[in-house]
């Protein structure tokens, strides 16, 4: 057999078979392969195929056994699911789960309680702050309103005073007016009296001196002035008067 022929082992592959080469035939027949090589190859291949077949059968048997075993186990499990062991296992698992659940529930409850308390504290603080703010605002409003009221009162007082003053002023004005009227009337009456007196005096003078010489009239006028206290005294007219 030529060196190129691979050893055929338990596992025989298509690639191995494809790769097989044989030495050319020796002697006179130049066509074909060396028969001894081919015989050896065929024998080894046959052995390998037999071994593979055996293994296939064994594997199939194992598979069948396994399937039977699985079925047997399944049946047993189905049967056993009602048995003591399975029920015990289920019971243990159930207890463990309940324990876990209650632990988690306790933690959740604790966290809920803490959160509720935190929220209460927060709401309380907020409420207190709001109340305080409200109270402060109420107080401020009361003070403001009180001030407003006082201002209003003051305004009211002032208005009253103003009214009174206005009234007083009006009265005073009226009094002043009536006094003014009285005085004006008095003045007018006095003027009329004085005018009447003066007219009477002038009439008297006219009667006394109306036909007199212009010089005498002038002298009469001068004398009249003198009787009023005039310093401009003419000795001659004085004498004239005295002469009368």
């Amino acid at each position, binding site marked *: 057999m030529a060196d190129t022929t691979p050893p055929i082992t338990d596992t025989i592959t298509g690639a191995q078979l494809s790769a097989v080469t044989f030495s050319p035939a020796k002697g006179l027949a130049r066509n074909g392969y060396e028969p001894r090589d081919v015989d050896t190859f065929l024998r080894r291949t046959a052995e390998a195929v037999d071994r593979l077949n055996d293994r296939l059968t064994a594997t199939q048997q194992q598979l069948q056994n396994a399937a039977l075993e699985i079925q047997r186990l399944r049946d047993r499990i189905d049967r056993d699911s009602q048995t003591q062991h*399975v029920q015990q296992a289920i019971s243990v*698992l*159930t207890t463990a789960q309940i324990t876990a*659940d209650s632990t988690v529930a306790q933690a*959740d409850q604790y966290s809920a309680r803490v*959160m509720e308390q935190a929220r209460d504290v*927060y709401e309380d603080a907020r409420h207190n702050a709001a109340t305080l703010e409200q109270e402060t605002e109420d107080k401020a409003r009361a003070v403001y309103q009180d001030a407003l009221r006082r201002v209003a009162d003051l305004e009211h007082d002032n208005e009253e005073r103003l009214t009174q003053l206005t009234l007083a002023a009006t009265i005073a004005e009226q009094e002043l007016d009536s006094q003014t009227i009285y005085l004006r009337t008095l003045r007018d009456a006095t003027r009329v009296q004085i005018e009447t007196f003066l007219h009477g005096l002038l009439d008297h003078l006219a009667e006394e001196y109306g036909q007199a010489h212009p010089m005498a009239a002038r002298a009469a006028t001068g004398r009249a002035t003198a009787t009023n206290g005039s310093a401009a005294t003419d000795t001659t007219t004085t004498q004239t008067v005295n002469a009368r």
Partner: protein
Amino acid sequence: MTDIDTAALKENFAVVAAHGPDEVALYFYSYLFLRYPQTRDMFPPAMTRQRDRLVGALVRIVTNVDRVDELVPYLQDLGRDHRKFGTVTAHYPAVGEALLATLRHFSGDTWTDDLAADWAAAYGLVAGAMSGAAENAAHTEPAYWEAEIVEVDHRTFDIAVLTVRTDEPLPYLAGQSISVEPTTTRPREWRWFTPANAPGGREIELHARLIPGGSVSTALVRASRPGETFRLGPPFGRMTLDPHSQRPLLMVAGSTGLAPMKAMIGQLARDGGRPTHLYFGARSEREAYDQLALTALNDRHPWITVVTATSDDTRWPGPHGPIGDIAAASGDWSDHDVYVCGSPAMVETTVKQLLVAGVPEKDIRFEEFGQA
């Protein structure tokens, strides 16, 4: 479910449930984890909420077992949503086995081969509807979206507005909700939140209010930091805008129930706007946490009227009282599309008052969410 004796199933379920719903659920999960330990990782450490969910789902399925039209959409949503937990088709037989073992355990002597066959057939239909919907959804959307926190804005000590950016757009409708898992701080805990912005971009605004003892709300409000990642589940919910309606809108929101209203207003603004009255109620001025945004909306859009009322704040200059009372008494809403969102108590009283005020029941939309 023509070949299944549904009456017998209901009767058997009543027998089983008589042992106490929590007992039954405990047994179910213990069996499941014992037989298939790898499924334990899909659930949170504390299972109380999970058991409630299971019982709730089972009751709903068994109650509606005769009404396929009710049941199938619910199961399809459930299947689609379960992808976020890492549920794959291969998990369904395990759950079926645990369910049957549980039913058999609590049925005692009343268990029969016929019951076993009927339950197996019924579960097969349920699992088929769920896993079928999940496989369909897998062609169009991921099991969940990764989202990174961009901003955490603490409006008060117990209300935060979070902005997250998803790895790819999450195709929700304005008003719909998504489930959120704080992946690093609360793995495998999912809760519903509603985006407060209209869809389209990769950023989502979430309004979170701290619930005392609530693990996810605490994680969101107090423990979230920019850079941290969340997982977001697929969108659900039917409280959305009617694209064919031209009617005016009334929106009544309590506290973080404001989020879907803001998303819908964003959508309305995009679509040209419709006369909208938004009544927002908070306990106090402090809890009126989004006034800047509301004032901005009011100023920007002439078709919006925003009224903010407080129920417990004597110093608030605006209206006082429960927001439902104020909204219902403020006008004739009988020709409006009405949306209500808030705490369950607020939604209940508001809906009642609006009905009394003459709004037809079909025109009032609100969301009832169970646990995510």
